[in-house]
């Protein structure tokens, strides 16, 4: 029945007609709208790529992962970063055939124990981890097994691409990425802050120098069958540590036993008696306090008797020695006589200013205090003057030596890269320990010790290396043991305007036929430092200087002729 066939008669018929025709407009509009929808529906169903939208939703989730901040070396080489390493977990309630599942898991991950896996699969608990840090292949294979009860959980693993190279500086993290040592622990506030994930931590360490230092130390450690070794390269003007090695070391990527001996960073943890290296401080304080002049002579003709003890010289000259000679030939008697003239109080005051009474300053945890004599009498004062009876960490030693040669400013060591402009420090920023004039003299004396004295094996053609050897006997059961030695060498270059300090220390080295069974600082540590400087000098862009005369040379030559 068509609407046109019906007609209502009467007065109202006109209005109804109007209403009817008006209805057509919205109806046609609706028809139009719905047909649009229909067309769109068909076009979506037939032509639109649906999978596109689904993946979009899924991939948007990755934003949640928070990770530890990277650690880079001074040139931007990655030293610690995070990589995805999924963990395998299990929901035992979803496992129907534990025996078979266990078999298959053990076949894929052979280092797992079958019984233990089975125990986990049949456990009454809701959720259990089976193995952490899977490789991508393992992940793929486990997914291929297709058991709904096995869960792969996204996780991050801290990775140290440089392996053992700087393990003691970096420290390590435990299974839950909680830092346990080193820079990881000290800068945890920064490293675990997800808001700073694009703000990596730049260390002052240079991977290349670190490698050279480690390689040379390791070679010498093998050669002299030493128990341990430690080495530091430091920028004297900024306090930046460019390399810090302690051997034996560990690999932060592997399993770690926190109590193992290789976990100890000997540069900050172990105070050593430094031996003759301390004569540097003795001479520096003597010259700086003005109580001794360079040309003053001291009687080293025979061993010095103080109370019940007798002080001997290792390289006895049996004559009067002036100050450069005492330092160059490393005379214990001379150093003792010098310190007698300086005085105990002045000595203590200077050593404290050199920072040798306190923990070393650096951005690491677990620093060791120096071991000081309990009572400062005349004997103690004298033994300290040549580095016995006082034990400081290698970092203490390096920081203090840096202040002796850099113009007298004690600049705290740092592991964080400083900007170029910060190198030039005004003397107001750091305490002035000795005067620049004394510092200049000390540079020449250290140069003489390498050129003419005990440190001659540290000579490097082209670089004016200065330094001081140190050999100390170890205390075993309260007595000095002549066969166990701590030998060290602290070197710096170029001596006219020192830029870098290189320090090497060996614990219980044994002489070889090459060294005539000598295991002193001059034979063991000095060649290592020399070799390191030979390799790092060109790398650091230090300009070689071929012929510059060392001052005060005449004092030594004149002294030799006297006889």
């Amino acid at each position, binding site marked *: 029945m068509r609407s046109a066939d019906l007609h209502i008669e009467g007065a109202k018929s006109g209005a109804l007609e109007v209403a009817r025709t008006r209805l057509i407009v919205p109806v046609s509009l609706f028809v139009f709208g719905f047909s649009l929808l229909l067309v769109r529906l068909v076009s979506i169903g037939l032509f639109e790529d649906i999978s596109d939208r689904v993946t*979009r939703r899924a991939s948007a989730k990755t934003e949640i992962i928070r990770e530890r901040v990277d650690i880079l070396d001074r040139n931007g080489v990655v030293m610690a970063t995070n990589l995805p390493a999924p963990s395998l977990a299990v929901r035992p309630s979803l496992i129907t055939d534990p025996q078979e599942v266990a078999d298959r898991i053990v076949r894929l991950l052979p280092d797992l124990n079958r019984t233990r896996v089975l125990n986990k699969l049949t456990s009454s608990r809701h959720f259990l981890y089976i193995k952490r840090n899977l490789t991508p292949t393992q992940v793929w294979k486990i997914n291929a097994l297709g058991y709904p009860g096995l869960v792969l959980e996204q996780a991050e693993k801290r990775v140290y691409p*440089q392996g053992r190279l700087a393990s003691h500086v970096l420290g390590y993290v435990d299974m839950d990425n909680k830092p346990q040592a080193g820079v990881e622990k000290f800068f945890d506030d920064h490293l675990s802050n997800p808001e700073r994930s694009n703000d990596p931590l730049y260390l002052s360490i240079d991977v290349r120098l670190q490698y050279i230092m480690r390689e040379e130390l390791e070679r010498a450690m093998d050669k002299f069958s030493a128990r341990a070794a430690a080495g530091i390269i430091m920028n004297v003007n900024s306090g930046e540590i460019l390399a810090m090695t302690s051997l034996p070391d560990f690999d932060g990527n592997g399993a770690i036993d926190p109590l193992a001996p290789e976990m100890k960073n000997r540069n900050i943890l172990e105070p050593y008696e430094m031996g003759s290296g301390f004569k540097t401080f003795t001479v520096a304080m003597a010259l700086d306090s003005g109580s001794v002049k360079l040309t003053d002579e001291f009687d080293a003709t025979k061993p010095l008797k103080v109370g019940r003890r007798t002080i001997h010289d290792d390289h006895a000259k049996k004559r009067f020695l002036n100050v450069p000679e005492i330092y160059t030939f490393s005379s214990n008697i001379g150093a003792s006589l010098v310190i007698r003239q300086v005085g105990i109080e002045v000595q203590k005051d200077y050593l404290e200013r050199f920072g040798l009474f306190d923990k070393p300053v650096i951005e690491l945890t677990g620093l060791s205090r120096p071991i000081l004599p309990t009572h400062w009498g005349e004997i103690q004062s004298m033994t300290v003057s040549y580095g016995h009876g006082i034990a400081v960490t290698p970092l203490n030693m390096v920081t203090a030596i840096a202040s002796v040669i850099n113009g007298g400013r004690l600049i705290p060591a740092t592991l964080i890269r400083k900007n170029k402009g910060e190198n030039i420090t005004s003397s107001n920023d750091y305490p002035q320990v000795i005067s620049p004039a004394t510092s200049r003299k000390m540079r020449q004396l250290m140069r003489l010790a390498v050129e003419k004295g005990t440190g001659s094996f540290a000579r490097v053609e082209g670089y004016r290396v200065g330094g001081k050897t140190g050999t100390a006997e170890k205390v075993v059961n309260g007595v000095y043991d002549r066969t166990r030695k701590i030998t060290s060498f602290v070197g710096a270059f170029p001596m006219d305007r020192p830029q870098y300090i290189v320090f090497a220390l060996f614990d219980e080295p044994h002489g070889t036929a090459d060294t005539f069974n000598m295991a002193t600082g001059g034979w063991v540590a000095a060649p290592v430092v020399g070799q390191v400087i030979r390799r790092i000098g060109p790398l650091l862009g230090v300009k070689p200087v071929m012929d510059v005369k060392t001052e005060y040379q005449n004092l030594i030559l004149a002294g030799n002729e006297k006889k």
Partner: protein
Amino acid sequence: MIRVVAGFFIVMVMISAATVYSLKETTQQLKAHKQQLSADILKDRAAIKVLRAEMAYLSQPARLEKLSRRFLALSPARADQMAKSVTSIAGRENFKQVAFPVDEFPLLLPQEKPVFRKKTVIRQPRVRKAGFYDRISLKLEKNE
């Protein structure tokens, strides 16, 4: 007269409704696009991280030294090979400095995420006509 006005308003309502709908649709698509982009960025960032770690691992000094010993006829520079300045090299009084010595150690990193192409038949890229969404997003961009 009233009819014309009413018709005009009805048309206007329809047009504005259609515009609002399409705008909303466009915004949603843009949002999805943005999500896709940020997911891609995250993925790329993760890939860069892995690559950098691999780079650092592969450029371990010990490994590089071994490789250099084996494949290169080069040895580390010695002090006597270094010149203090250009002028100090014999016979070079008249010189022109064209570059400054490089004292930094730039690490060369891969510039781009490597793309692993499948070796299957190369498909002709589908050329998509600019749809309404593309046109309006272009327009929005221009207006900004």
